[in-house]
């Protein structure tokens, strides 16, 4: 075999080998990424408006949300997941603020960070009225803190 053709085939071989390694690594990452997530839907119904009382918010444990109902302003839904590292915050009626037990973040009643390491305010989710009269929350739609649904 000639030196020139040997070098050519050798380079082609090396390129092919490294491409194969690259493609395989990509395949491994893709394999580890599930194609289907068997997780609860991001948009769900939480019940009839009449089920929710005025005053302190209702905490829905499964969905990790607080449902606020106000006589004048209507419905608003806040996320209970701390924006720092994902612990579940609690709403304290006495100071009307959210407190995170993990690293001490404190959020104001509108979700704004007042204290601690949380980098962003708590999220507020879109709440709408479904056709059957139930409230529907969509976690994929983050809305401003001022968002309200009047029923």
């Amino acid at each position, binding site marked *: 075999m000639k030196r020139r053709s040997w070098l050519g085939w050798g380079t082609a071989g090396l390129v092919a080998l490294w491409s194969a390694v690259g493609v395989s690594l990509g395949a491994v990452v893709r394999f580890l990424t599930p194609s289907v*997530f068997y*997780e609860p839907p991001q948009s769900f119904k939480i019940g009839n408006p009449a089920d929710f009382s005025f005053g302190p918010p209702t905490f829905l444990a499964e969905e990790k949300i607080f449902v606020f109902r106000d006589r004048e302003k209507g419905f608003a839904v806040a996320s209970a997941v701390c924006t720092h590292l994902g612990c579940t915050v609690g709403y304290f009626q006495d100071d009307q603020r959210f407190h995170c037990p993990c690293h001490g973040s404190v959020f104001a009643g509108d979700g704004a960070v007042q204290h601690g390491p949380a980098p962003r305010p708590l999220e507020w989710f879109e709440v709408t009225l479904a056709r059957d009269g139930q409230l529907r929350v969509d976690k994929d739609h983050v809305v401003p803190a001022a968002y309200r649904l009047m029923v």
Partner: protein
Amino acid sequence: MTPLRDVWRSIVRRDPLSTDKGKSELVFLNLWLHIHPAKVKRENFKLKHTWYLGFITFYLFLILVTTGVALMFYYRPDAPQSYQDMKDLQFVVYLGSFLRNMHRWSAHGMVICVFLHMCRVFYTGSYKAPRQFNWVIGVFLFLLTLGLSFTGYLLPWDQLAFWAITVGSNIGGYAPLVGPRLKELLLGGHAVGESALLRFYVLHVAVLPSTMILLTMVHFWRVRKDGGLSRPVWKLKPAAAGPLVRIGAPAPAEAALVVVPASQDKTYGLMEVVTGKPIFETVTAEEEEDTVFSYPYAFFREAIALMATVTSVMAISLFWQAPLEELANPAKTPNPAKAPWYFLGLQELVSHSALLGGVVVPALAVLGLLAIPYLDTNPSRRPADRKWAIRAFTLFVVVNVVLIIIGTLFRGPGWALVPPWVHVSGAE
């Protein structure tokens, strides 16, 4: 008796142990023992040189593999069944809680011993040439130990497990560029759930232990290839006592060639000339005398260390129960939610800033550790010659310990600063 002896001889092909040849062959004809040298320097047995921390770490790893495999017979990585299996191990399975205690306390012990071993290697300057790369492997073994601890404590599926993994995977999510992707890969979803449990299980029982075994083999092999254990620092002579003559180096002009008269009753031959620097610390003739056979001197000491390790872990496991909190409850975060003690320094950092404390500072710390043998090019291993290196590393150790103490003892509900002697009512 001849057939029996023939069978024995077919298995053990060495001379009797009463002879020096037999003692050597015991080591180098045996797959399990040949990681040892046939002869060992007596000074390396000194307790205050190594504290046998590498051995103890390895023995703890052996205990962890053994008890871990035992626990696997009764454990299913399936939420919330896993928690029921833990309860079975605690109350129903014969020796179940004892084995689980051993597994848990050995894991804690391993984190401590790996760290102390790293300190020992630093303070004796044993990461210096030619051992730089073995220090790097050691740092990776330390990270693997932490990774095994982290993946291990998700498995009971109790409150500690659930919230530690929630916090941990969210820290991963702060990593620049790859963060969200990394978190999704680790959890196999968007929140801690059944797929996360399965993934952590596979990492804990297959991926990380096999990596650990491979790296441990390289680590041990390198110890031998880099010239065995480093000499105790108190045996090192002050540098620059005389000009060092190296093979291949041009001799100083004034140095007279030493001529040794040839013996009449010997045949001389030039066997081989190797150029370049010798990688081993030079051993003089009188020190060469001070070696002993690995059998029985080294094996005896290793056996003592093994027995001491196993007995201590068993004794601790008889009297202290491994903690198990309530069943994981995604809706309710315990207050305060604390990781195991060895991660509380990290949690303390994270409580100030997730990106800085959880990603940037730990990444810099690991890079710093990895770079130590390449940054510190001072060849001397004597403590008197390396004051600043020792001060810097001591500062690193002290900061770690102080952060862990603050996180463990001085943090109360809502991560508020509470001294340990003040009782907070209502804390869970």
